[in-house]
């Protein structure tokens, strides 16, 4: 008896993969009683195993999973993702992460410092901001504030700082082929602030003083624009075009 041949042909029979020639070979081998016993035993085992398959269970976890994902997306913001990305990898990666951490910490410290003098800068009409690549200042009847732009490792960071006495919605609109929403971090919140996102916009709802860092992933490496619209109720109170230069 050729054991390995019999094993191969029996398994091919189970998988329905026998050629005509192999069928004849198997028939020949099965003329021997011992081979036939083996063949019957293996095919029956597999047949019984197939029948033992647990019944297919229907399940619907869609809502539960989406709820968890939405909660995580809303609470983890972008910084967590940035750091998990940065801390992945080799020694060089860690060194790079440390350097980036130092830069971010210094930037945040400077931002915090500059925040105090924001109104003064604004009153004086200063358009330049040394810690950011671009800065835009807004002085409307119903609100004032600024939008500053920073670039970091394929990310565009928009620092949105708004002071308003009435509810103000700020919508940042972008081309979904050029940017994707990466996260938002609330830096200052004097009242309940909310945000919502779609594949091409981020909407921030404010009252009193609020400051956010909005992270957009730069999908294309060429200059583009983000449009900011400010709404009070149903009225557009200001529009701003933000140049993204990198």
């Amino acid at each position, binding site marked *: 008896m050729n054991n390995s041949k019999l094993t191969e042909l029996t398994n091919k029979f189970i998988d329905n993969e026998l050629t005509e020639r192999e069928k004849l070979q198997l028939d020949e081998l099965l003329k021997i009683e011992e081979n036939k016993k083996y063949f019957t035993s293996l095919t029956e*085992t597999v047949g019984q195993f197939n029948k033992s398959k647990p019944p297919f269970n229907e*399940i619907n976890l869609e809502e539960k999973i989406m709820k968890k994902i939405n909660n995580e997306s809303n609470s983890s913001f972008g910084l967590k993702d940035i750091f998990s990305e940065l801390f992945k990898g080799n020694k060089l990666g860690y060194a790079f992460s440390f350097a980036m951490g130092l830069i971010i910490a210094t930037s945040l410290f400077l931002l915090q410092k500059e925040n105090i003098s924001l109104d003064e800068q604004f009153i004086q009409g200063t358009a330049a901001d040394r810690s950011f690549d671009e800065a835009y200042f807004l002085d409307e009847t119903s609100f004032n504030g600024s939008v500053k732009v920073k670039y970091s490792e394929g990310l565009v960071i928009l620092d949105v700082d708004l002071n308003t006495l009435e509810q103000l919605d700020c919508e940042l609109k972008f081309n979904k082929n050029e940017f994707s929403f990466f996260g938002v971090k609330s830096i200052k919140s004097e009242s309940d602030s909310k945000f919502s996102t779609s594949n091409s916009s981020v909407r921030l709802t404010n009252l009193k003083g609020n400051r956010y860092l909005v992270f957009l992933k730069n999908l294309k490496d060429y200059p583009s624009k983000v449009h900011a619209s400010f709404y009070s109720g149903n009225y557009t109170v200001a529009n701003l075009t933000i140049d993204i230069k990198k």
Partner: protein
Amino acid sequence: MNEDNEIIIDVLNGNINSFRLIIEKYQRKMYNLAFQIVNDKDSAKDITQDVFIKIFNHLKNFNSNKKFFSWIYRITLNESLNWKKKSTYLEPIDELHAAEYSNPSVDYEKNERAIQISKALNKLDEKYRTLLILRHYNELSYDEIGEILELPTAKVKSRLYIAREKLRNLLGSYDNE
């Protein structure tokens, strides 16, 4: 571009809601695969949820040159096997778990055989058990199994032949008891 990749790009572009389509398409297959490995409905549910969240969080790492289904099958498989290793408090398949497999409407002998098969399956080495489950319970082709397990098709085949043989021997030993 295939449908899965289109959905993934949409999700990566910020349309989180599109991920529903992925869940809708794969949740039953993943849940049933997890259940076949861990033999516990609640744990299979937890594993399925965790896997989807893991997939969502790592979607940007997915290699679009590979098949999405094999990626999520591999993650589900690994999560289920890890869960099984960790849950030392659960005994290998016993009559209680086997009741999940067996159909109360069929006769005693058939249920008894289902229990024996479950016991034998749990006695097998993980690599053989996995192959039998993927091939016979999930009805995947050798190529598909190869993609999931990152093994050459010929290796999948030869290993499955051994797995069947081992199962036969184990069941034979029950018959002789």
